[in-house]
């Protein structure tokens, strides 16, 4: 108890004490304790503005994850392109658009994020991730990361970025795409440019990456995982880079460049045909599972059974028997049926090829054919027929017409690269042969390309131009 004059203190001391106490609260309210971090995710700005070696390397490894996004999902790259190229069906009863939009209809719908508007956003997420990694390198001192290590990271990131751009232009084709994307997060998007400009950009990225890799020393400062087994040093990774460059060159009809690139790639007729780089999956927590294995609704196109060749012993193309099975009873959805199912991707952890030796050999055949060297092309085609398909070589293939050789080449690409990322659809489009793909029903058609998604179009053009419409 205080023994001060109570009468005076009541009127003066009390309000003072009260105000002092409240004032103390207000004064101490500098607010630092109100700062709550994002407990669930690291911040993008932190990585951009204050990069650390560990964070940059984690983001580099992140590219393995972002480049795998929506590859194996039921409406991902492999599945949707497989449907368009009549390699596969998806008989998901709860979503009729696997038939109504993908196989029939006026065209793919730019406003359906799971279908016509798909396979764009996740690729640009990944491209942004690559730019974040590349830009963050500038914030690291040479002590944090040596110039050789930085070159290794840059070479890796640019190669995977080129792969993302390639998958974008494979789906959009003549609709074009955006390549000016290394802008601050707050800025609007860059313009949509032509297919050729996108291919130029991809080639440039791959070439820059290859130069980076040449300066990258003996090893990467991070792990590339099981999918890059055999390609996980700058030297071997460069062979993967050249493989992609060869694919791009063939797509562009630059066959000479393609042969040069193939010469620097991992093409090796004495190596296993499935040697290559893969997207890997697993059931580990936080990992992605191969969605193509999980879905019972994904089935193969019946024409694969009809068209598969046999050898002299009346044995079916080994690629058919390894990858496909004839079902006991046909499955039907919306009046379409098939009796062929996939053996491919039977496990949730089965990998999906990005590029493999078998494709490189077929790319070489294609380049040789394009350079009017049919005999050499035929040798490669027969090599794959025999070694991959268990078929008999076609005698005098090299003397047949260019069209006949091309058809045989396309047959082999179809079965060798079956359901690995839209090769059938892309190849048939390149040669103007989409009308040769089998249609299950009148009213069906083969869509030629994906539109630019609605969200992109609205910002880019107000949605007015043809590239944004449902047109295929």
């Amino acid at each position, binding site marked *: 108890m205080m023994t001060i004059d109570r009468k005076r203190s009541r009127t003066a001391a009390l309000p003072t004490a009260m105000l002092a106490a*409240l004032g103390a609260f207000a004064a*101490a309210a*500098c*607010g630092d304790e109100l700062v709550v971090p994002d407990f669930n995710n690291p*911040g993008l*700005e932190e990585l951009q503005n204050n990069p650390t070696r560990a964070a940059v390397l984690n983001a580099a490894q992140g590219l393995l*994850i972002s480049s795998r996004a929506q590859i194996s999902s039921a409406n991902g790259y492999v599945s949707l392109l497989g449907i368009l190229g009549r390699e596969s069906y998806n008989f998901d009863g709860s979503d009729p658009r696997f038939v109504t939009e993908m196989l029939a209809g006026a065209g793919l719908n730019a406003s359906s994020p799971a279908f016509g508007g798909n396979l764009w956003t996740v690729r640009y997420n990944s491209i*942004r991730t690559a730019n974040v990694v590349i830009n963050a390198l500038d914030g690291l001192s040479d002590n944090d990361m040596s110039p050789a290590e930085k070159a290794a990271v840059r070479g890796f990131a640019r190669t995977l970025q080129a792969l993302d751009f390639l998958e974008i232009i494979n789906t959009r084709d003549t609709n074009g795409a955006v390549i000016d994307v290394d802008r601050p997060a707050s800025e609007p998007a860059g313009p949509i440019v032509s297919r050729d400009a996108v291919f130029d950009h991809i080639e440039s990225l791959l070439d820059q990456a290859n130069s980076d890799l040449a300066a990258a020393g003996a090893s990467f400062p991070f792990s590339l995982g099981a999918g890059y087994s055999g390609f996980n040093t700058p030297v071997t990774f460069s062979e993967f880079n050249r493989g992609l460059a060869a694919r791009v060159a063939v797509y562009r009809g630059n066959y000479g460049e393609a042969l040069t690139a193939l010469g620097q790639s991992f093409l090796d007729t004495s190596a296993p045909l499935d040697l290559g780089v893969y997207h890997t999956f697993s059931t580990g927590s936080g990992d992605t599972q191969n969605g193509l294995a999980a879905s019972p609704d994904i089935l193969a196109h019946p024409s694969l059974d009809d068209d598969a060749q046999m050898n002299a012993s009346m044995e079916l193309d080994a690629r058919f028997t390894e990858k496909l099975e004839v079902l006991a009873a046909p499955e039907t959805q919306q009046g379409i049926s098939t009796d062929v199912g996939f053996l491919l991707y039977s496990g949730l952890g089965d990998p999906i090829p990005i590029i493999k030796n078998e494709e490189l050999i077929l790319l070489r055949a294609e380049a040789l054919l394009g350079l009017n060297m049919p005999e050499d092309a035929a040798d490669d085609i027969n090599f794959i027929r025999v070694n991959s398909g268990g078929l008999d070589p076609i005698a005098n293939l090299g003397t047949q017409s260019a069209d006949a050789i091309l058809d045989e080449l396309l047959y082999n690409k179809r079965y060798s690269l079956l359901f690995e990322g839209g090769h059938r659809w892309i190849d048939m489009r390149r040669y103007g042969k989409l009308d040769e793909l089998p249609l299950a029903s009148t009213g069906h058609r083969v869509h030629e390309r994906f539109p630019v998604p609605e969200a992109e179009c609205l910002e880019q053009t107000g949605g007015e131009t043809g590239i944004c419409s449902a047109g295929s």
Partner: protein
Amino acid sequence: MQFPEAPGMGSVGVDDLRGGKPRYRHLNTQAEGTLMRRIAMLVFALFLSGGVSVLHAQDRQLTGRVTAGETGAGIAGVAVSVRGTTATTFTNDDGSFTFRVPNRTVTLVVAVIGYRTQELSVPVGQQTVQIELDVDALALDELVVTGAATAMSRQVLANAVSTVSDEELDRAPAATIEHSLQGKVAGAVIDGNSGAPGGGVQVRLRGVSTINGVSEPLYVVDGVSMSNAAIPSNQNAVTRAGAGSNASNNQDAVVNRIADLNPEEIQSIEILKGASAAAIYGSQAANGVVIITTKRGQVGRPRFNLTQRFGVFDLSNTLGFRQWETFDEVAAFFLDPSESTAADTAAMADLYGSGQAFQHEELLAGRNDLSYETNLSVSGGNEATRYYVSGLVKNDEGVIDNTGVSKEALRVNLDQRLGERFNLQVNTGLTHSVANRGLTNNDNSGTSFYMVFPFTPNFVDLRERADGTFPANPFERSNPLQTASLIVNDENVWRFTAAGNLTTNVVTRPQHELSFILGGGVDWFNQENDLFFPPSLQFEPLDGQPGTRLEGQANNLNANISANAVYTFRPEGASWSSTTSGGYSHLDQDLEIVRVEARSLTGGENQIDAGTNIQVFDNRQRTKVEGVFVQEELLLLEDRLLLTAAMRADRNSNNADPTDFFYYPKAAASFRFIEPSSWLDHLKLRAAYGESGNPPLFGQKFTPLDASTNIGGLPGLVVVGTTGADDLKIERQREIETGFDATMFGARASLEVTYYKKFVSDLLLSRSRAPSTGFTTEFFNGGKLETQGIEVALAATPVRGPINWTTRATFFKDASEVTELPVPSFRTGGFGTALGAFQIEEGASATQIVADISEGDSSFVATVGDANPDFKLGWVNDIDIGGFNVYFLWDWQQGGELINLTKLLYDFGGNTADYDTDPQFVERIGPVEIMDTLTLGERRVTGFGVETRPYIEDASYLKLREASLSYTLPEDLVQGMWGTGVDRIRLTLSGRNLLTFTDYTGLDPEVSNFGNQPIARNIDVAPFPPSRSFWLSVDVNF
């Protein structure tokens, strides 16, 4: 007619001691270094000031008795206090009291809940006093919260605040507290999300306040901010409901956790419906504030209250099935003539058998097992220490096998006087519940009960076989009877709340009263979801991973600290008084959810580590709010005029700049005309203005990288596509409210009419980015929304005497409009326009429903309805006749539309009860009637994708929510049989949701597949079926 002066505002003591509502309310706290220092300073200030005491002059002894005006019987537990002192006593069982009061003319304040408060002047020398109190049947004198630490008589209040007392709450047993508020509060739309036992109810106060923000009111229980988080069970891992075109995992039939409150423990609920009343809650008050006060001890001997209830739940509605008349009809529908073989036909014929129709819904949900509830409470104490202890054990058996809720609750509330100037309150509550909720709502895996029935014709026998196994359902991937029997979907919740308040009355003199109130409390819960799907289920092996075990652990801690001061100045002889209050509060909400999904269980073990495919997820959200406020309440002209002004400043960690203060002003005025005409006792005009905020959701301000994924065990960071704005901040709500209150016919009737309008600006919106930037979504503030409405509350006691009849009615309606939208119109909720969706569009109602419709040959998207009801009306009647009481509550909703996708599913399955109904008349050409060529169901299915209107239905309903008939045994009979130890025995027959009248063709117009939603409620997808409940109760007071 003389109106008593309102009890002294701001003083803490009288009403507080008599076991009523404490007058101080506060927000919150946390315990961190700087804060602790500040609190220490405040405590120091408290003690410093507490040391300054007022010595008493000579006292005198006053004795008296308080009786009920009508019966003359003594009233126990009445608080008798002397205005301007801390002296308070309580009447004993016969209403008498003895009291030392100052030896001067004193003003006695005599108050108890249920009676009109009375004040009387006792001159020097008077030794005895007789006081008669009038019954306050219409609750005219109740105290209503006006600030963080102040309350005021309803007589002078400048806002329309709804209060619901304990007597109004527990007329019929309710699963959760929100159920017992249905139909009783003007301005509150309270709708269940399904019939699932254990809760899942949305309370919306005054219509739409936000589009993307939090839409739940703030719940404050005994001063502690109580979490109403709704945490999904993650049944989605099996139902895959989110794998379709709406990825929301709120489709798990989620319980919002205010369900943990035990209604029996609640003394009263006050509802501040909008910003004009709730501005001092600042950034948490955008959706109103529900202030809940638990019961407290009353002075006197221990009074026990035992309630024992037994009851049953009974399926109250079914959808029925299409009746198949012949096998030809079955074959025509299920067999495709071009594809099917003779074997197919034979197999189908085998399934059809004799064509016996099984009532699958009744087989699933026809259970009527006995439910029970036991509640025992004891209250008592003396003037120094009072206690209230309550225990609950209950078990509700759901209508579906293996569903239901068991719950136990314990509450201990203590009041302790510490010397003359300190008063300590400690409130603790512990609850435990286990809810088994079956498997309902949307799915994409053919597992949810009512997702399977649409595709299962009623000739299929799904019943358990003699050997205990179940037949496989040949038409879908699961047999609901097997699923209900074998799955585990348990939600196990422990919840602990504790709150303490230390009040010191620093100055208590006739002219000056000053008190400090220091409060703190925690609200903690753990929600554990255990889900098990054994491999023996028909659907389990289908993904190649037999057996699924899911585990969810959610922990939430709300920590509150507050410090408030209240100063009341009442000049001697003046006709006015002033109450000034101010305070500080801090709230820290921390929620972490960890989930594990284990699939492909080795040996089918019910064990997470038996899984061969195990996935782990973690999410943590934390929000801190800190605020200060000042408030001035001036009561002028002999309590006729009230002027209030207040300002709250707070900052919220979810804002982009957490250190930035936002200011929320409030001003209100009311004026009373006393006896303006012979029949009008009292007319009050009032107007109020206030502002509040709705903060961004946790995480919206960040531009994150995803660190939760890996590839083959290699960690990686990736861009995920959302960006937050640097200036992201609260939505701002400005509300005006005006109206009048009238008391008529000698306090026999009261009428309250209110108009309000809310202006919401800086809406939290998301805008889509061009995805080539690598980002898809950006959160920002923009746009405006307005909501206005009227509320009417009428109460009357038309008959009083041997028969007492009290009737109350509430009527309200509201409408919203999006007045400015800086982004293109966008859809929120739903599954796309073919299935009905909500569209936010400038100039339109925020709750409008759009869908595909066709006219002529063209099909387009158009507005087809609005989820918001046209109006709601609640009507309560309470009639006492002798020992009998009859009570019933009607709840009427007019208008509003629902999207009935359950019916769409039944149509897809060709299984709707009316599917085969004869073709409809289309038009008459001359004498010829043109008939549709299709049956009703065929017509609806044919329109799918172009004509959605058949599935947009009127949600109007009239429900008999509560009804009871009770009989209180005559006192002489009770005492003859049990002696004087027993005060009262009452027998009650009661029921809930006994009758429903509606044109809605679904199970129940109260439905929301997505749970509680700001906008997109009213979507019906395979809900848990509704039930009514009947109860027999015995209440014993001793």
